[in-house]
């Protein structure tokens, strides 16, 4: 409908009186009436008086006619009653009135193409009579389920349907109601092996193994048979629960949410980081773990937006803030914040807030000021990398996270969105757009605990410093013992000096820590502290002397080893002089009277408070009162199960988005997501509380529905009625995502490394390293080509994958070493079990690669091929490898085996291998 509106405006556009119309008003009108709005009525004159002849009214507020005046009064009244005061709501309220008093209701005048505010313009009785059908159709349109994405979610009752036997859960009821009203017949249940492959690929991104297929077959045979002859529910539920609890589920769906949340490894030129941050993979692992433990979606939102404010000492919550870290940009703080605002609004709320950066939103009730208030929430935040246990160097490893750096950072309102023209008169306070509902909590500053403010004072940092220092002492001791045992006096002397140095350093560290502990306990200037601090200084001086002495000794030895007169010798004597001076200085310092001015450990210090702005935002988003959060999330989940979303514009639930195919179903799912209906046994492992916001609950509802279990085969009658399968009369087949295609190639050959998590792997290794695809570096200009060819996520934004089918994909599967090698490995393994039996080989190969048995015709094709190809290869006398390499780098020397390798290679290129049917 939106498309029609925009184009209609473009096409229309020229009437002089329309020049100053606020497009938003006309859009609201068009939106409400849809295609029922006559062209003539999409005009300012519907609500405003015409301009006097020869003069165009330059004012924003053109005088209203009687209809416009009534509309405005209604809006004001609605607002006073704290009700939704959109133009649509007001329109609805006055449709049956007669604004211009010409005896015809506003609704009838508008639908018949007459101005409701112009007494002289009214339809004749004949016109009204002939518009009967139109009026009835419009009434039907308006009596349908209302789509009000900005109103809080109310659970609609599941409709009663005739096809009750088909209804396994309310999802089916909503779909069946549409089927019945449109005359669509749902496709029967898909064959068991098709279903099994579908749910495996969908939930874990990998196909079932032949053993798993066999186990499922047995389980189905032993379970209570289903009335429709399909897969028994009990067996199906066992598979679904097992897959939902499989850690590979988190990897599969983790990649989906990485699309929505814009995961990107760091990008830049050379070693310079320009986008995102090193070690951001920790956030990727956080996503996988959150899904596997079924962490509530509300909690995920809280941790991603405000983990540092909500749980400042919990490394897991801090890791969640990787969501924000990812937006980091070296070159532009403006773009950084812009991306943060734009994508937070789109990913969690399905709102195109970015449209309001330069002007009030053209479609949705969002003001330009709202944009900057939303931005103010993020204004103070910045990015840092904290030390992680086991690695003192944050260049090698660390935890990238956000924190509020500038607590008083001001947000400016930019006139027309231009950062060169801030409006000094506007004060911007952190807030969210009123129109989006819910209650924005009071922003309250968060006082941060010491470990968050001074991360070097965390226990593990102290412990590791002590351990390293103690280890150095132990090392020095064994060194000394060794040289003494060997009777090497000179080396023993050096080792003894080293030991003294290490011991005294260790002693100093202990004393420094003791003094610091007292300070942190607030006992600075106490007698105890004075003693401790003095002791620390004395120990530090002593350590300085010991270290200088050791250093001098080493320097002396080096100097003695040089040939006199050489440049090296000159440098050595210089170093020797410096070492002597250093020792003299240390010795002199040690003579000074002792004070409390010991040298503290170096430690970065961050603000002791956080503004609490992001926490307020996160609470507002993760609230059951928020009308959009749950709707948007379940819509994303639905999209990835069925290949088509309920609201097709998954990032835009506003008026410029496309309307939902099943608004009532979406509302029901959203309600069920937030307040699940018992009884549903919790799927969350180790989780706390109920199962509200459980993604696994929604997954299970969807994949156990009859809708999900339909065959994907076509049907001519249904196609005539609903060509695009908008009303889901069948399961729509679709191509696998890039990562799954690649993973499956390794997996069917038994070569996929099941290791989870860890640092991003260099992307050029993608064709050889057998890890799952989501663990490879994915960032601007650092993308695996193989994945890009299969429409991998754009790192800047990917709310929905594309599923293209192009010759480049064929080339990648036919010509890459990836498929060739794995075809060889799998073929040799199957050949080893089938002893030259071509029929058995073909059957097994189909099971491994396509998760099903070949039909008789397919089997015959394969057997003929094996015979002919063997013959062809034998005659061609192709140079084969000397033997079989385990990595499949070369073809088998034996023509019969090589033909089998070819067959498996063909199956890896088969349509079904890359398709969920």
């Amino acid at each position, binding site marked *: 409908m939106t498309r029609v509106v925009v184009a209609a405006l473009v096409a229309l556009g020229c009437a002089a009186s329309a020049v100053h119309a606020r497009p938003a008003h006309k859009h609201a009108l068009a939106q409400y009436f849809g295609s029922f709005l006559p062209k003539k009525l999409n005009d300012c004159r519907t609500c405003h008086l015409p301009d006097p002849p020869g003069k165009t009214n330059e004012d924003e507020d053109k005088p209203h006619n009687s209809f416009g005046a009534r509309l405005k009064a209604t809006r004001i009244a609605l607002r006073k009653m704290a009700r939704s005061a959109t133009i649509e709501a007001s329109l609805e309220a006055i449709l049956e009135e007669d604004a211009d008093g010409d005896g015809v209701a506003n609704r009838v005048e508008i639908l018949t193409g007459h101005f409701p505010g112009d007494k002289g313009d009214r339809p004749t009785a004949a016109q009204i009579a002939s518009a009967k059908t139109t009026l009835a159709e419009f009434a039907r349109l308006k009596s349908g389920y209302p789509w009000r994405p900005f109103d809080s979610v109310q659970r609609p009752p599941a409709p009663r349907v005739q096809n009750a036997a088909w209804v396994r859960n309310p999802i089916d009821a909503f779909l069946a109601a549409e089927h019945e009203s449109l005359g669509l017949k749902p496709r029967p249940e898909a064959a068991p092996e098709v279903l099994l492959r579908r749910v495996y690929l969908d939930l874990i991104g990998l196909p079932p193994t032949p053993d798993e297929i066999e186990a499922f077959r047995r389980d189905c045979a032993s379970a209570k048979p289903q009335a429709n002859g399909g897969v028994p529910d009990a067996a199906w539920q066992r598979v679904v629960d097992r897959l939902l609890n499989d850690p590979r589920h988190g990897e599969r769906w983790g990649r989906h949410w990485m699309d929505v949340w814009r995961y990107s490894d760091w990008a830049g030129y050379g070693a310079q980081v320009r986008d995102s941050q090193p070690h951001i993979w920790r956030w990727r692992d956080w996503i996988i773990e959150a899904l596997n433990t079924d962490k509530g979606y509300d909690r995920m939102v809280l941790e991603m937006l405000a983990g540092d404010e909500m749980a400042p000492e919990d490394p897991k919550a801090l890791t969640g803030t990787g969501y924000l870290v990812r937006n980091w940009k070296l070159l532009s703080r403006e773009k950084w914040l812009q991306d943060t605002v734009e994508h937070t609004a789109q990913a969690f709320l399905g709102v195109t807030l970015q449209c309001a950066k330069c002007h009030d939103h053209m479609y949705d009730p969002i003001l330009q000021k709202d944009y900057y208030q939303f931005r103010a929430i993020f204004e103070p935040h910045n990015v840092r990398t904290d030390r992680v246990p086991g690695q003192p160097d944050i260049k090698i490893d660390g935890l990238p996270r956000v924190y509020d750096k500038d607590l008083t950072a001001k947000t400016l309102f930019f006139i027309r969105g231009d950062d060169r023209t801030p409006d000094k008169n506007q004060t911007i306070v952190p807030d969210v757009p009123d129109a989006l509902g819910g209650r924005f909590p009071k922003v309250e500053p968060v006082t941060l605990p010491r470990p968050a403010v001074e991360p070097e004072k965390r226990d593990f940092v102290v412990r590791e410093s002590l351990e390293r220092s103690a280890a150095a002492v132990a090392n020095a001791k064994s060194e000394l013992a060794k040289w003494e045992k060997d009777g090497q006096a000179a080396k023993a002397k050096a080792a003894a000096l080293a030991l003294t140095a290490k011991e005294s350093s260790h002693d100093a560290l202990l004393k420094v820590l003791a003094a610091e502990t007292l300070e942190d306990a607030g006992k600075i200037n106490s007698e105890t502290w004075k003693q401790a601090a003095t002791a620390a200084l004395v120990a530090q001086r002593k350590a300085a002397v010991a270290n200088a002495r050791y250093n001098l000794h080493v320097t002396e030895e080096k100097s003695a080893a040089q040939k006199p007169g050489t440049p090296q010798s000159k440098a050595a004597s210089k170093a020797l002089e410096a070492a002597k001076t250093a020792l003299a200085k240390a010795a002199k310092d040690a003579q000074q009277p002792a004070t409390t001015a010991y040298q503290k450990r170096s430690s970065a210090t961050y603000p002791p408070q956080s503004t609490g702005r992001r926490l307020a935002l996160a609470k507002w988003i993760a609230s059951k009162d928020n009308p959009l959060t749950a709707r948007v999330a379940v819509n994303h989940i639905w999209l990835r199960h069925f290949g088509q979303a309920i609201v097709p514009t998954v990032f835009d639930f506003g008026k410029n988005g496309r309307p939902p195919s099943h608004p009532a179903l979406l509302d029901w799912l959203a309600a069920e997501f937030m307040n699940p209906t018992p009884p549903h046994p919790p799927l969350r492992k180790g989780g706390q509380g109920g199962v509200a916001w459980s993604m696994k609950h929604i997954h299970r509802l969807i994949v156990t529905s009859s809708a999900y279990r339909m065959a994907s085969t076509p049907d001519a009658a249904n196609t005539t009625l609903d060509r695009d399968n908008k009303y889901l009369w069948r399961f729509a087949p679709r191509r696998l995502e890039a990562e799954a295609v690649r993973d499956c190639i390794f997996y069917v050959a038994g070569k996929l490394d099941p290791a989870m998590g860890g640092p991003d792997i260099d992307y050029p290794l993608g064709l050889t390293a057998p890890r799952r695809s989501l663990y490879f570096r994915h960032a601007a200009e650092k993308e695996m080509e193989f994945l890009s*060819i299969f429409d991998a996520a754009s790192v800047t934004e990917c709310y929905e994958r594309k599923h293209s089918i192009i010759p480049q994909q*064929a080339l990648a599967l036919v010509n890459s070493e990836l498929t060739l090698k794995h075809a060889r490995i799998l073929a040799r393994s199957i050949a080893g079990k089938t002893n030259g039996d071509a029929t058995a080989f073909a059957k097994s190969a189909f099971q491994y690669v396509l998760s099903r048995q070949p039909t008789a015709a397919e089997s015959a094709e394969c057997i003929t091929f094996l015979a002919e190809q063997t013959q*062809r290869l034998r005659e061609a006398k192709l140079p084969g490898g000397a033997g079989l390499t385990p990595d499949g780098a070369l073809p088998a020397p034996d023509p019969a085996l090589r033909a089998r390798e070819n067959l498996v290679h063909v199956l890896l290129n088969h349509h079904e291998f890359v398709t969920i049917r």
Partner: protein
Amino acid sequence: MTDSSRITPALSRRTFLADTGMGFTGLALSALLWQDGVGRAQEHTLPDGRPHFTPKAKSVIWLFMCGGVSHVESFDVKPELNRYAGRTIQDTPYRDVLRAEGRDVIAGNPVHGNRHTLMGLNTGYRRYGQSGLMVGDWWRHVGECADDIAVVRSLWTNHNDHGAQLTWHTGRHPREGAFPTIGSWINYGLGTLNQNLPQYVVLGTPTGDCCGGSWTHGAAYLGAEHAGVRLNVGAANPLPFVRPAAGLQPEEQAAELGLLGRLNRLSGIDYPDDPQLRARIRAYELAAGMQAAVPETLQLERETEATRRLYGINNGTTQNFGQLCLTARRLVERGVRFVQVFHGGGGGGAWDAHSGIRTNHGQLSAQVDLPIAGLLKDLKQRGLLDETLVVWGTEFGRTPGAQGDGRDHHPQGFCAWLAGGGIKRGVVHGATDELGFQALEPRHYITDIHATVLCQLGLDARRLEIPGRRRLDIDYGRPIREIMA
């Protein structure tokens, strides 16, 4: 992507097998039988690879300059700008042009403010050829071809930012999403002229993700098999994986692909309307041919020195775009229907001269002017210009008013030109006002260019329908009869 294809709903399992070249049991039939028009089942009434009426052109080379080329300094030169430079539009005799500002919904970008203080021309200009076409000096080589081209000077578009790059190709505003591009309509509407190259090829760096990205050469609901295929001219690997990994012999691979075709068709027995399976079968057939044809097509060293010089391949400035233009000619020679050549792609586009337009347009035109002229001359001398339609365009013009020392986006009026393929030679159609501000009647929305191109190829946009896909009047456009020979 369950998008519709050419298949009618009533298509039966039997029809499918016939249509994919197998016959009901004819597993041995050659895959090539699926070629358009051959072996197609009787009840098929949608595009059958034949034009609707006698075509004037066979192929299209579609040159697109990303970022917005100044119309007033290229093919719609406005000397009045020199006269009134530094004055506001209000302050000239042409102040009336502002009265109609915004009448097409889209005015200048509100972010950028209005640019009403006029800027003089940043390049010289003169008249060329017998037609006396006035062309800015930045385009003097194309100017030499003035008597072969038809300039359309009254274009307008509906978007004032670089998303208009998408609009130029689909006719739709970017917020509306992906729609079939002109190249994909042609790919969809016409049968192929070759067996081993895509029908629709994309050269150069396309539009950035901000502004349409791959949608500018996509096919949307027509299906990805009708989308453009990018070739990397000059790269060691023009197309990833175009060469087999070590160890796979050609005859071995050929036998594999034969089996694959048969198995895929068997897999489609229960899925007679599956556009994805169809697309995949086609993709494999095409891929097999491309393995040899793509590297051969890109062997520009096979051209004579004189030809290479004509395209500026010997010169560092013109080399890159010259290679693209020469490749475009080689592609249409080999039967590619639509070659879309991007210049200055990525981000908003290189031609986006908000500042320093003199340097920006000076340098960029130096890269493309000579190669484009070379392409026109080469096509002409080979007799290919009659059957090859060349289109030069950009997403919008640039403001007559100054933005510092640059010019802003200008969707209200701008120009493009067409040559060859049955287009009149040496004509100008339409005009903007004396300042180059508003397109004057007869104005042309950009889909009029699409309609003109389709018409020259013998296609009627209105007959390229997909059941269940509503198109809008403005999508079809109107052929610009005035420039058709």
